[in-house]
Each structure stands twice: as C-alpha cells, then as structure tokens.
C-alpha cells in the first residue's frame, strides 16, 4: 500500500505540491489527470525517492520513503517507474536493458535474468527484438521495452509518468494496450496520464490534480459523469 500524507514539495520558491493526500491499495489502478505543470509527475518521482520532499510523509508498505534510515536502493526494487521519455539505455541491447538490473541489483545469474526478461519482453510483444539496440526501435517499442524493464524487477507497484505523451499518435494504442494488460493482471499502478479514455476504462479511481493538490478523487463513472469540484468540471469540459 502506498500512503501519501500531506506532502509538500517546492522547487526553490515555487511550491508544486501543496499538501497531497492519496492512498493506493494493492491491486488498485489509480489514474492521475490534470493540467500541465500541476505537479503530477513530481509526485511520482517523490514516491520512489528520486526527489526529496519538504514536509509530509510517503509510506510504501509502511516504510517511510524520505526517512534518513530508509535504504532507497532496496525500496526502489519494488517500485517500478516508466518515464515519458522512455530512457532506454542506448549502449545495451533490448535484452541487456531488461536483464541488467535483475543481474546487477538482484544478483540473478545471466540465465535466470534472461528467462525473466524474455518472458516480459514476449509479454509486451518484443520477443523478436532481443538483440536489437534501442536506437533501432520505434518510440512505442522503446516504451514497451521500458515497461518490460521495470516489470523484470517484479515490482509491487509501477508508476507510469505520461508514458504515451512523447509518442506519435499511431503508437499510443500499442502502449496503452500493454498498460491495460497489466491492469487486468492485478498490478498496482499509478498512472499520470492525459488519456481520458484510458483513465475511464482501466482505473479503479481517477484523481484530478489542480494547483498542487488532489482536488477530487473518485471512481471513473462518478468522476466523469458527476464531477463535484468546479475545477474538475471545467477541466473535463475543456478536453471534450
């Protein structure tokens, strides 16, 4: 379970998170929507400790992420994150990209890691690209590889940071299909997204981020048909 309690976060004098509260249960899929620059992506990088916070607490399975005594490297093994910009490692083949962390971080043998990697890459439809370098892949393929790379660590949670925003429109579908597949398998996911149909069809709850706080959070039916917060209504009317 991920519990976010009254989290504040500033970059210099700019406060991007102004008291965020959210808990995500095991097996739940939560989509976070909201305008650009509202702090959605920052929240994700705070959850796995890539960014420090100014106040509040974030607990992952009861462990406080920003406590000084927390072993972040260990904690990050169970929190996968997939970025907007794919972040494929260009000097490694697709298979090496996916096996690297299981081998070097989890200490698996090459054979063990490859077995898992091939399984995950097959899962995302890249079984025929194992020995290819990321530079030869399309954006959609690179992003699916990045998903497989995160999953190869068998994380308990996966955070998706606008994973389709940098893709050509015709490649968005293949990545969203992969996310749907994961959601149906019961993976716990927090997805920052601009894909409203995805948020509606796949999530258990949808959260609306506005001016540094979660203004509204509700199951998708309720959220899209009867939004309570005026800002949510305005946001939804603008994108339709």
């Amino acid at each position, binding site marked *: 379970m991920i519990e976010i309690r009254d989290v504040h976060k500033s970059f210099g004098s700019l406060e991007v998170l102004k008291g965020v509260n959210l808990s995500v249960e095991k097996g739940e899929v939560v989509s976070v929507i909201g305008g650009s620059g509202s702090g959605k992506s920052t929240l994700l990088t705070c959850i*796995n400790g890539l960014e420090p916070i100014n106040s509040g607490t974030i607990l992952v399975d009861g462990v406080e992420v920003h406590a000084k005594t927390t072993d972040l490297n260990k904690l990050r093994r169970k929190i996968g*994150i997939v970025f907007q910009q794919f*972040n494929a490692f260009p000097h490694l083949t697709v298979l090496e990209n996916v096996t690297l*962390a299981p081998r070097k971080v989890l200490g698996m043998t090459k054979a063990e890691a490859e077995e898992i990697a091939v399984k995950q890459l097959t899962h995302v439809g890249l079984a025929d690209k194992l020995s290819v370098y990321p530079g030869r892949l399309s954006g959609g393929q690179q992003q699916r590889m990045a998903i497989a790379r995160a999953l190869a660590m068998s994380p308990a949670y996966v955070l998706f940071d606008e994973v389709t925003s940098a893709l050509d429109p015709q490649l968005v579908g293949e990545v969203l299909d992969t996310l749907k597949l994961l959601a149906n398998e019961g993976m716990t996911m927090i997805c920052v997204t601009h894909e409203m149909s995805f948020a509606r069809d796949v999530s258990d709850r949808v959260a609306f981020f506005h001016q540094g706080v979660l203004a509204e959070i509700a199951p998708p039916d309720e959220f899209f048909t009867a939004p309570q917060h005026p800002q949510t209504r305005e946001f939804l009317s603008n994108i339709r």
Partner: protein
Amino acid sequence: MFNYTFQWRQALQKLPLLLDGALVTLQIALMSMAMGIALAVVLAVARNARSRWASAPATAWVEVSRNTPALFQIYMAHFGLGSFGIHLSPYLALLAGITFNNAGYLAETFRGALRAIPGTQLRAARSLGMPSIQAFRLIIMPQMFRIAFLPTTNQMVWAILMTSLGVTVGMNIDLAGVTQDINVRSFRTFEIFAIAAVIYYLIAKSVTLGARLLASRLFRY
C-alpha cells in the same frame, strides 16, 4: 652551397636501435594513457562535485596541465620534484609528466561527454535500484567513453609525440633519445631524424587505425 651527401645505408644500419627505442616510446605512451584515462574519470567527476574540497584540486590540475607547456610539466617532474628530494629517473619523470598532461586534457573531454548524456539516464538507472556508483559504471561511463572516443584517440597520438620531450631530462632509451644519441655520434642528422620521423608517423597512424577498428567493434549501437 649544398654539399651534403646523403648516407642512407649508414643510417639504416641503426634501424634496429631505433625500433627498440620505438617500443619504449609506445610503452610510455600506452602507460601514460591508461593512467591518464583513469585519473581523468576521477577528475571529471570531481570537477562536477558539489564539495569544493573535491572540485578545487581537480580544477587546479586541469588548469595547470592544459595551460602550461608539456615540456615544463616534464621538467618539473624531473628537476622540480628533485629540489624537494624526490628523484625520479628520466623514464619515470617523462611518464609522470605525460600522465599529468593526459589526465588534464582528458578530464575536460570526459566532462564534456558527461554533459552530453541526458540526466534522465541516471534517474532511470537509480529508479531500478542501482546505487549511484553502479549506475555511473554501468550506464554513464560506457556512454561517456563512446562520446569521448575520438578526442581520446587524438590524445593518444599526442602522448606518443610528447614522449620526444624526454630528451630534455636525459631520457635516452626512447625513440627520440636513441635518435639523438645516434645523431651526436654519427652526424647523419637528416637521415637519422627522417627515419625516426617516419617511425613516429607509422606508430601514430597505426594507433589511429587501430582505434577506428576498435570503435567499430565496441560501439555497435
């Protein structure tokens, strides 16, 4: 007027001696590069460090090594350290001087290469649970070496040519030293230096070609 008679045969008889010297030259250049690269990685990282205790000495090293003559650096390693009671042989002084120079130049090359790698690469590696040193070694360094490969090859050529400065501190077993020795004994100055120059050229050229071959094997992406 022009009354110098070329005596190539006499000069060419010294070829085995020159080739022995060439081996020493190559040896010093290779060692100074190996140590220079290792030091340069440390310097490049230290220069970017937030702590002044790390960045200041690194900056000083880079500034001095790049903005003073290599000849002076070798002189200092031999005579300069000598006045403090540290006596390096000509061989070691030459090696130390060139290593100092290589490290300074390569540190800047590497620092530039590090800047060219997107910061998100490190974030991606860290988010997979890699400690920072591991992330640097496995993700950042390989990409850095690729970007810096050609300038590093240049530095290797420069290192080979710099070894010739060793004659000024009494180095007499490398190619320049042997050439100079033969010259003062035979006075076949033009021939001996011409042959030595060809050998320098061939060493430098084969390093460049070798590097190109290595690059095509190492960097398949």
